[in-house]
Structures are given as structure tokens and as C-alpha cells.
């Protein structure tokens, strides 16, 4: 019997920080969008806003322009700080393609 033993080439994976905890329910929560303003985000995200507002009582979904938009700015520390300061419970980020 011939045997070959070889390395998995994919390298180790480090998980250094967890994702944000999920919210138990969307009712009564404050949500925001962080949009790159690409790939029809100007249409899809407002639709999602309307759906959330129709489906959950007491929910507040901030308008699309509450935070800076565009690929050039949404990854910045400044945008992250604005999101934190706004007191939102969760954000939806879009759109990538």
C-alpha cells in the first residue's frame, strides 16, 4: 500500500474578534444603513427600509443619508464613529457585487 501524507495548504485561520451580538427582536429598535451607493443601493435599501417599518412596530430606520455614502468613505474610522454615536442597535451594509 502506497501512502502520501501532505500539508493542507490553506493556512491557519485566526478569529480575533467576534461579530456584534444579534438583537433579540427588531421591534422598537433603531436601525441604520451604511451604503456604498453602488449596485442599485439607492433602490434596494429604501425598499428594505419600508419593509422593516411595515413589519415591526416601534422600529426606527434611519434614512439612507444618515451616514456618509460611497466606497471611498464607508470603511473609514470616521464613519464607524458616526454609526456608534448615532446609538443605532444594528446596521445593514450594502450593496456589494
Amino acid at each position: 500500500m502506497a501512502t502520501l501524507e501532505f500539508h493542507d495548504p490553506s493556512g491557519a485561520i485566526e478569529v480575533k474578534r467576534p461579530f456584534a451580538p444579534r438583537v433579540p427582536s427588531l421591534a422598537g429598535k433603531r436601525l441604520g444603513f451604511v451604503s456604498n451607493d453602488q449596485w442599485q443601493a439607492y433602490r434596494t435599501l429604501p425598499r428594505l427600509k419600508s419593509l422593516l417599518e411595515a413589519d415591526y412596530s416601534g422600529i426606527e430606520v434611519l434614512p439612507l443619508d444618515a451616514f456618509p455614502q460611497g466606497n471611498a468613505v464607508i470603511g473609514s474610522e470616521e464613519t464607524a464613529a458616526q454609526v456608534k454615536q448615532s446609538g443605532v442597535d444594528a446596521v445593514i451594509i450594502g450593496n456589494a457585487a
Partner: protein
Amino acid sequence: MTNAVAGLGLAPDAAMVTFPIEMFLPGSDISPVETRKREFYDGLTRWRSAFGADGVAEAPMIRVENASMEGAFSRANDLMLANRWGDGLPLWPPTRERVSWILRGATRPRGHRVGIFPPRGGVTTVETCAIALAMAGGRPEYLPVLVAAVDAFLDPASGSAQLQAASGSAFPVVIVNGPIGAQIRLNSGFGCLGPDPQRPAGASIGRALRLLQQNVGGALPGIGTMANYGGVRYTNVVFAEDEANLPPGWATHATERHAIAPDQNSISLAFANGATNIRRRGAKKETPEEDALQGMYRMADFMRVPNMPGLSGYEHGTPGILMLPGVVANTMARLGWTKASIREFLWEHSRVPAEHLRRAGCPAWLEIDSSKVVRESIALDPWPITASPDNFIVVVAGGGHPTNSYWLQGYSPGVVGRTLELPPAFDELLGEAERDLGPR
């Protein structure tokens, strides 16, 4: 799309709702947002990562058995493809013995960390590089070039974090300067961007880099990279500048771009997403001056297009790499041309009329660019395809024939240089290559 956030230290999975591309096109039907709204809601409330909160998941060893060694080799190749670690060409299984052999070319301990490969976030060590080089059919004396190329690739200035996943099909171009090019059999002459059994180092090093991009970085077509076409990605581009045929007074690429001393071994890494031959030579009774000038116009005219390939490196990167054969470079040098005057000519004569930009819808792309220099360039008419002539890369490489030059269209936020360290056993490794492959 997966792996998009792992390079940030998060787990490779994330709460995502994905749709076919049609919904993201102008005038699309966006009703799927409503029919699948529950997935958005669940992503905010119920989703959990499949990975633990903290820690390192080490890659294991893999074992295959078969009645014959050929069967085991075949089984190993099948398994690597099934695990999405291959490129469709035969792979050398990275056994302990093979990887240890490659590591004779290491200058740092095998566990030395080179970086985190985006977008998946795989930890890349000297050993990880050696594993990829073993799979790619490489040799130990190639390892210093590969490790330096990976180090440059993972430098944030290279732009690799975005280019690994982007649709523009960028591929890394590694230009090697210094004596190591000839010593390890990198090609700088005829067919230097293609297969060559006499000078096989570039193919192995470039293939190993691609395997790292894919296996460690997760840049799998349609999953971790949205590259539409992915051209030149089997081996990327790895070649040496033809320093033996540099005209007197012309500096090497490493010295010009990175201020690296001429005899120092080094690599320079940029990204490109196009590769084309340009017919450079005249056809009739041109004087040497006319032949040179007409060739320069032909090259500049080819670059004068409103598809803005150089936008990503407009300020500090490169619009592309022009490869001139040594025989052409020497003729032009005798006529007074220098690398600097070639760059100046290309910059001036590749400028695009503003009207051509407008009719092609280019101003919208310029307006949304993150660079102020790019946004302000809208006012320039004709519009320069890069902010400065210095951004053009001109290298002497290619076969000793005057008809053609070559243009690697840049897609490169930066151009990153690294000097090379050589292992103590380097001369011994070169001797073994001579024994195994025959004289250089």
C-alpha cells in the same frame, strides 16, 4: 461571496443575503428584496457564526492511500481539487519531505509570519509559502523571491486587499532585479512571460503566488473573487529585468522606482489587468530616429483610451509596465532616449481628450473616486491617464528582436519594492540546480 471580512480578524462567515447579479443592474426587478426579507431580519436577530469567538484553527496534515504510488499521487490531486486547492494542472503533493526541501531556501524560521492573506484571512508563514511552492513544482532557491513577493503583496500599499476580490481581474506582476534573476533561472529574454523549460523559475514562483492567493486568501472564482475573466492568473507574471542589456546610463527598475542599489537583489510588485503586444518596428525605409519615434507614438496611442485602467493608482501607483527589448533600448539610448524621456513622452501623448471622456461616461467615475487628485483631474483637457510621468514603469526585458514591445496595463494602487535575503546555503542550492537541471 464569502470570506469578505475574515482579513479583518472576524470569522470567514458573515450574515449576508446574496442575490443573482441581475438585481443589481440598472432597471432591475428588486422584488426579491421583499420575497426574501426574512433573511435580512434573521441576519440581524438569529444568525450565529459557525466559528468560535477566539483562537486559531490550524490546517491539518492529509493522508491518502492507494495500491500504487501513481494511484496515491492521482488520489492526492483529486482530493486537492475537491478541496478547491488546485488550478486544474497537476500539483505536487506538499509532503513533509518536499516542503522541508523547499525550506532550505528560507532565511527565517518556518513559522515566521509573513502576514494575513485577504480576503479569507489565512495566516501566511514561511512554511505556507513553501507549501505553495512545493505544489507549484518549485525549487528551494526560488523561495526568497516568493517570500519577498508575498510580503510585498500583503503590504497595504499594494492594494491587494481590494484587488484580490474585485471584478477587474488584477494579477500581480513581479519584476526581479539583481544577480538572483539569472542565478535561479528567471527569464528576462525571449518568451519571458511564458513557459520555458530552460528558465522555469517564473512559472513556479508565479503559480505558487496564485495558489496562495486562492488557497490561503480564498480568492476562488465567483466565491472569493469576482474577477470576470481572471486572465494570466495561472502563473501571474514573474520575470527579471534584462540587466545585461541595459543601455549605458540607464538605471534598473529597482533603482529608479525604489532607490535600491543596482547590485542588490530585489523584487518590485505591481498589479496589472491587461497584457498586449504592440507592433513597434517600422516596415520600410525609416531612419533610426523615425523608427524610434513612430514606435513611441504607436505605444502612446495604444494607451490613450478612456477606460481608465490607471485610476486605482492614479497618484502613487502605475498606469502600466512598458517592456522594451534590450536591442530596442540600446538603439533608442544611442539616439538620446532615456527611461525618463520615454516616460515623459508616454505621459504627454497618451492624454485623452475630454470629449472622449465625456462621451464614454468617464467623469462619473472620476467624481466618485476617493482620491482628490483624481476628482480634480476632471478639469484637465486632454486628461492625463496618470498623475505623473514617473508613474509609468519602463523595463528592459524581452527577446533580442526589435519588432515588438509589450504593455502590461496597470491596475495598481501602489508599486511595492522589497530587497531579498538569501539563505546561507544559497550557493549550494544553485549547485544542486546545476546538477539537477543542467548548466544555465
